[in-house]
């Protein structure tokens, strides 16, 4: 399958995306390193879009030809000391892995997010030490690896080592 990366777009989720959403959110391979429970029905997909995706401060559908094949979420923390930081997560349908789609989408998302949230100075991503594909995505996007956090958190019931990566607003290329 050929993928033309110039056809990748980001937009907010709509209820009409439910079937496409279920294709990736209902797949254990995609949710393996996410805190989401794998979805198992169209109703769950509709509920998730309505209750989580739409009210989310910044979640975008990754689209090809306006069809949802994945998501990017950037979640600012709340609280006086933390609201200048945000947490990054993403997932792409397995059928579309291996084409650089997540990297392309993340490269598009990062400057858009900083423009939408000018108070945020630090994006961070916690990536499972075994999740090599996702480590490559953030590295190619320009995130900096800061270290490995040993036994940092439980993920799907197992205690995980995680790499912490960051992208600062000052890491954005200067405008010409």
């Amino acid at each position, binding site marked *: 399958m050929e993928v033309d990366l110039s056809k990748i777009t980001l937009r907010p989720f709509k209820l009409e995306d439910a079937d496409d959403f279920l294709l990736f959110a209902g797949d254990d391979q995609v949710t393996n390193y996410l*805190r989401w429970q794998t979805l198992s029905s169209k109703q769950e997909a509709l509920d998730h879009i309505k209750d989580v995706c739409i009210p989310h401060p910044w979640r975008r559908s990754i689209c090809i030809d306006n069809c949802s094949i994945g998501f990017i979420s950037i979640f600012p923390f709340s609280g006086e*000391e933390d609201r*200048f*930081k945000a947490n990054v997560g993403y997932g792409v349908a397995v059928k579309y892995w291996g084409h650089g789609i997540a990297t392309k989408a993340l490269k598009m998302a990062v400057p858009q997010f900083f423009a939408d949230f000018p108070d945020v*100075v*630090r994006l*961070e991503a916690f990536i499972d030490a075994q999740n090599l594909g996702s480590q490559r995505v953030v590295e190619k996007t320009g995130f*900096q*690896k*800061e*270290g*490995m*956090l*040993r*036994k*940092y*958190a*439980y*993920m799907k019931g197992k*205690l995980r080592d995680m790499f*912490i990566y*960051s992208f*600062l607003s000052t890491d954005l290329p200067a405008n010409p």
Partner: protein
Amino acid sequence: MEVTSVVQLDQTKAKDECLNLYLRPLQVSDVDDFMVWASDEKVTRFCTWEPYTNKEDGLNYIKNTVVPHPWFRAICVDDRPVGAISVSANSGNDKCRGELGYVLASKYWGKGIVTRAVKMVVDTIFVEWPHLERLEALVDVENVGSQRVLEKAGFQREGVLRKYFIVKGRSRDMVMFSLLSTDYQS
């Protein structure tokens, strides 16, 4: 009153000083001793909070934050609180992790007191909290003294987190340290 179950004792000689050092809960009646370190801007330099200026605020802090805290102890030297050390708790998927914090009156700096207090916490916290796998601490990159405390106590430096906190209006880089229950050998 049963006191021994909550008191950690350490009466080792430290270099040329013989210090009677122990940890115990901090109480409202300790407020005057609390104010000694809490009002000192040398002490609060790397803290997120400004020095305390009145006893009322000190009393409120002890009542509202210290007393209900999951794990908070006064560091006592010669039977008086000269500082504090605490471990925060998390819930759910983050329950394996606790964050260590400490503060010491400046008059007592340089004697290895906090290093000993940290070792006493490490000796007990993994036993008191069997679900705890990881004790972590975040230290300002410029706070070299505090980094040395953790290194001497056996913590591992994991990396520098850039602009991790905004402290007193400025973004700060922080060094992340951790000690795992599996690192710890009694």
